[in-house]
Each structure stands twice: as structure tokens, then as C-alpha cells.
């Protein structure tokens, strides 16, 4: 351990493992440690006994829930957009080779008290009960415009310079109603609040295109895919990548104290009386709490059920977005459900998650609209956890602290944080222009 490393990474959450992998591939000498005796930190997947322990429940799980080891319950449940940033990172690094994916059955949105399949194309718009007859036609025109939009072909721009006009301008050009705007912005473009409406429309249009392209890719009922055995496989896959490129792994290392020189610059990490020297430290906020501040709280419920969520066409895996406006809230609520069909629970069992940015101290009350659409549940765990953001200047202290995982049910914000950390650490950009059309699935 008393060697010198380019980078010491603390915590084996997904973000830290992706960074560790990318840095090792770059030829940097990486030491990766975790205080726990398992991979994944906050983004691990737990079996039933571990879940019981984690929520401080007395005695052991009841027998009716089945075998503990057949459970892989994500602590940060999220789906992956089939054409999204995480898939690009997975293919770019070849970590896909370690994983098996399966398409997610459904993408739904909550509107006026009901769940509806999210329409993402002109054809689906015409079929969707979300809109009245005339609105369907307007939405269809809007979707055709987005599908045909090509940044490099001005003819497809219909006279709108997306770097100048706002998303609101584009939507009003097509005369779309508030309810329609709500599901397009939150369930298709996956914005978490309405501030996008007053931003340049480029990002907005790109996000809808990614959704539609992802949907087309695997002929599933949603644009999402999810790994068999749960998301805990992802950090493990990237950790293996790092190890294959020479990274050193140590789990179960207590303390992991970052050491600084007299100028406050990180120079190493001490654990069990030994200090490993390094030039840079990468970690999650729990390893350097003094360099992070609380920016919010996530309220969530984890539920074990014996059935799929009602009104989702029997989907064995599904995302349902409940846009803020539909609930008179400041932030969206997310429902995520997966099951034995992705090997995360014993046969016949489903695991549903309801989460949102907490606005009160009562998750039970706050999460009720999401809980209400689940139907009967066997077991529920409520929790509120804090979200942190780094406050340090990494030019000065050589520390690179990740931001906590948010309440969203997809990875786009996770990957954006990782890529920007990578750029800060190395001064380089990750080139993610992988050939997604060549990359496809084998069964």
C-alpha cells in the first residue's frame, strides 16, 4: 500500500468506478478503496437480508418473500436510455461485455389522475388517449418536426434557430396545450422542472430525439434497458475494467483519511496506519464531508409486491413519471418497477420504488400519489436521504468529489457529472462518438 499513485479513488459507487476505469485505461496508476466489504457504495444492490439490516428492521425477512439471495434491490434505482450517455460510456469502454441487458417493458406518464403510455412518435401521438383529437394532430406535427430535425441541414429547421429561440417558442409554434407540454418536457425530454422552457431549444429537441431513437432501438415498449441482476453490476463491471488495466482494488478499508500538505493539497490517503501517496483524490461526498454541502433531500419508498403496477399493460419493468404540475409540487415524482424478469427478485415478485426531491419531512405523506398507483404492497421501506454537492476548488486541493445521486429514474445526469469530473481530472474530454448503429444486441 505504501506506494505512490497518480490517483486514489475512494468509494466504489458507480461514478467513482466509471472514473477509475477511464483513468486506468488512460494509463494512470490508480488505487481504489472502499470502507465497505462490498462494491457499489450508495449504488449497490442488496439482497433481502441486507435490505432488512440496512433499514434497521428487527428479526429476519418473512418466508413469504422468498429466498434472500434472489433479491438484488437497487439502492439508486435507475434505467438506462438505450441511446443515452451511459450506453455510450459502456460501449466505449467495452464494459458491455460483462453485462447482460434486457429492455424495459414500459414508459408511462401520470396525467389527470391516470397513467398513460408515453407517446414518443407521430404514430403513437395519434393513438394516445392523453390528447383530444385536434391536439393529437398538433402533437403529430411537432413530433414529425423533431424527427426530421437535423442540425446540419437548415432545410429541416423550419425557420427556427434553436440556439436562439426557447423551448417555449417552439412549443407555442405548434400550439400545444399545457398538459401536452407537461408530458413532453418531463416524460420525454426528462426535465426535472420547468426552467427548460426559457432556455434555448437545442437541448430540448435533442433530448426528445434521444428518447425516440432509444425507443426504436430494441423494440421494447420503452426507450430504456436495464441489466440482469440489477444496477449493482455496473460499478462492478467498471471496477473490473480498471483492474484489467492495472488498477489496484482494496475493499473493507476502514477510515480512508485523506492527507493534506501545508497548502491544503491532497498528498495521500491513510487507512489502518498505512499511507498511500497520490497526486489526486477522487471520492464520493461521504469520504470528504468537509468539502461538500447539502443541496437537497430525496424522499423514497422501496416496495415489494406480488403483481405488476396496475394500468401498465402488465409491464414487468416500467417507469412512470408524475410531472410536478400534475401533483401541484415543485419537483417531479418517479415510480420505477422491476421484477424477477430482470433477475432482481424471486419468481412472481416485483420491486417498486417511488422517489422525489423531498419538500417535507414526511415521506409517507409526500410519496402518497406515487404509492397510490402501485396497488397492494407486501412490504414498504421509507427513507429520506441527503444529497451533497462539492464545494471545493480542485485546482487548489487536488480533490474531485462527486455529486450525490438524484431522484431521477435514469442516468443522464449521472453521466454528465462523471464526464465533467473526468475533464477536470485529466484536462481532456472523453470521446463518446461510438458507432451506436453498429453496436447492437445479441440475444
Amino acid at each position, binding site marked *: 500500500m505504501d506506494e505512490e499513485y497518480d490517483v486514489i479513488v475512494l468509494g466504489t459507487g458507480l461514478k467513482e468506478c466509471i472514473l477509475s476505469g477511464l483513468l486506468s485505461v488512460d494509463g494512470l496508476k490508480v488505487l481504489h478503496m472502499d470502507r465497505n466489504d462490498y*462494491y457499489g457504495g450508495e449504488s449497490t444492490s442488496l439482497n433481502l437480508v441486507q435490505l432488512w439490516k440496512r433499514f434497521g428492521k428487527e428479526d429476519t425477512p418473512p418466508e413469504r418473500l422468498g429466498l434472500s439471495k434472489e433479491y438484488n434491490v437497487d439502492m439508486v434505482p435507475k434505467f438506462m436510455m438505450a441511446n443515452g450517455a451511459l450506453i455510450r460510456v*459502456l460501449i466505449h469502454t467495452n464494459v458491455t461485455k*460483462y453485462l447482460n441487458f434486457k429492455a424495459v417493458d414500459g414508459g408511462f406518464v401520470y396525467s389527470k389522475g391516470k397513467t398513460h403510455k408515453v407517446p414518443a412518435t407521430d404514430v403513437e401521438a395519434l393513438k394516445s388517449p392523453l390528447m383530444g383529437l385536434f391536439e393529437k394532430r398538433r402533437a403529430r406535427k411537432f413530433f414529425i418536426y423533431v424527427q426530421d430535425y437535423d442540425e446540419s441541414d437548415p432545410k429541416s429547421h423550419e425557420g427556427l434557430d434553436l440556439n436562439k429561440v426557447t423551448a417555449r417558442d417552439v412549443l407555442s409554434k405548434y400550439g400545444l396545450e399545457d398538459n401536452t407540454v407537461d408530458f413532453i418536457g418531463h416524460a420525454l425530454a426528462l426535465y426535472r422542472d420547468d426552467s427548460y422552457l426559457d432556455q434555448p431549444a437545442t437541448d430540448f429537441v435533442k433530448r426528445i430525439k434521444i428518447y425516440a431513437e432509444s425507443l426504436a432501438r430494441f423494440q421494447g415498449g420503452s426507450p430504456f434497458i436495464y441489466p440482469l441482476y440489477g444496477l449493482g453490476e455496473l460499478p462492478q463491471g467498471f471496477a473490473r475494467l480498471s483492474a*484489467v488495466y492495472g488498477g489496484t482494488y482494496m475493499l473493507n478499508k476502514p477510515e480512508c483519511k485523506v492527507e493534506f500538505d501545508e497548502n491544503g493539497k491532497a498528498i495521500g490517503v491513510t487507512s489502518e496506519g498505512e499511507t498511500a501517496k497520490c497526486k489526486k483524490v477522487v471520492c464520493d461526498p461521504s469520504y470528504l464531508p468537509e468539502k461538500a454541502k447539502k443541496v437537497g433531500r430525496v424522499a423514497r419508498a422501496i416496495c415489494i409486491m406480488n403483481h405488476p403496477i396496475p394500468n401498465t399493460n402488465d409491464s414487468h419493468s416500467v417507469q412512470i413519471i408524475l410531472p410536478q404540475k400534475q401533483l401541484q409540487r415543485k419537483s417531479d415524482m418517479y415510480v420505477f418497477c422491476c421484477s424477477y424478469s430482470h433477475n432482481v427478485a424471486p419468481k412472481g415478485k416485483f420491486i417498486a420504488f417511488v422517489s422525489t426531491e423531498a419538500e417535507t419531512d414526511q415521506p409517507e405523506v409526500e410519496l402518497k400519489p406515487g404509492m397510490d398507483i402501485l396497488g397492494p404492497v407486501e412490504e414498504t421501506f421509507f427513507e429520506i436521504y441527503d444529497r451533497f454537492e462539492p464545494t471545493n476548488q480542485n485546482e487548489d486541493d487536488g480533490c474531485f468529489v462527486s455529486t450525490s445521486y438524484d431522484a431521477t429514474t435514469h442516468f443522464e445526469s449521472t453521466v454528465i457529472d462523471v464526464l465533467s469530473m473526468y475533464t477536470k481530472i485529466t484536462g481532456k474530454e472523453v470521446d463518446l462518438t*461510438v458507432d451506436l448503429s453498429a*453496436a447492437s*444486441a445479441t440475444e
Partner: protein
Amino acid sequence: MATAGNSNINAKLVLLGDMGAGKSSLVLRFVKGQFLEFQESTIGAAFFSQTLALSDATVKLEIWDTAGQERYHSLAPMYYRGASAAIIAYDITNTESFERAKKWVDELQKQGNPNMVTALAGNKADLEENRKVAAEEAKAYAEVNGLFFMETSAKTAVNVNDIFYEIARRLPRAQPAQNPGGMILTNTPSEIAQSSNCCS
């Protein structure tokens, strides 16, 4: 997982055992026919694929090395996931490495699938003059624990092909369909063509 179709079998094989036992050397000898006196970890290889033609089947082994994660007991559960075969290696000149091999057998019985084909390899058999672990002792242990045993040398190549071929011979020829298989996202069209003929 081993999947069968027209006697084409795909199987994941994992190497286990303490650092220095010669796991990477065994793989390198088998896959590339090489031996390096100062073997660095094989950088950049996710795993090696090797196709073995047997009289009754073609077996494609996907061979996973530990990538050094065994050093501080940090192998991830995904390493064992779906493995149908394992080679647990120890160094015949090192008693401790044999004791640790037994620990790996226990670990495998906890983590791995119960029908796994497991081999115990007493490696560095070329170093007879420094032997510390008697072949009889290892053989007896292997028999009690349902493993098959061979002494190997990655240096001289003795028994290296044999142990991999013996595993291939012992793999179940037909397996019940696994829980609805997922898809592996691949990068190159040729890979897709290759693997699409494996499953029916």
C-alpha cells in the same frame, strides 16, 4: 452459463486462487502458448475466448482471469456470475497457497452455481525439488470435495491443455434453458454474426 445447441457449447470459466499461484500464466500458456518468467497482469484483456473441438461438441470457453482483484480479497460477485466452470490454482511449492485454495473452494460453493465443473490445479509442477504439497493430499481433498485434480506447469506446459480439455469434456452437454436470457450489447457487427449462431 453453458448453452447448448447442435452440440455448440458456450461456457464461462473463471480462475481462482491466491496471487502468485500461476493463474495468469496458465491462461497465457493455454491461449497463447507462451510463458513469461515475470508475468505482469495481462493488461487490457476482458477475457479470452478459446474454442475447443471435442469429438461430440464444440466448446467455446470464455476464460476470465482475476485481473489482480484477488490480491486484497476484492473479487466482485459478478466475477462468479453465470460461470459454469472454475480452475482453482495453488503453487505446489507453497503450503499456504494450498490452504488458501481450500478457502476459494468454500467461497465458490457459496457464490457459484451448484452444477459448476471445478478443477484443482497444483501448479509449478516443474519445481519438484521445492515441493511442499504432496500430490496425494491434494488428490484426496479434491475427491472429497467433488473437484477433479491435476498437477500442471505453465512453464513446461505439462497438463495445461489437458486440464482445460477435461473441463470442456465434463461440461453438461444439454442444459435446461436459463431464465430468459438478456442481450449483450456489442460493438462490432462481426461479433454479432459470430454469436448469433450460438443460440437457438
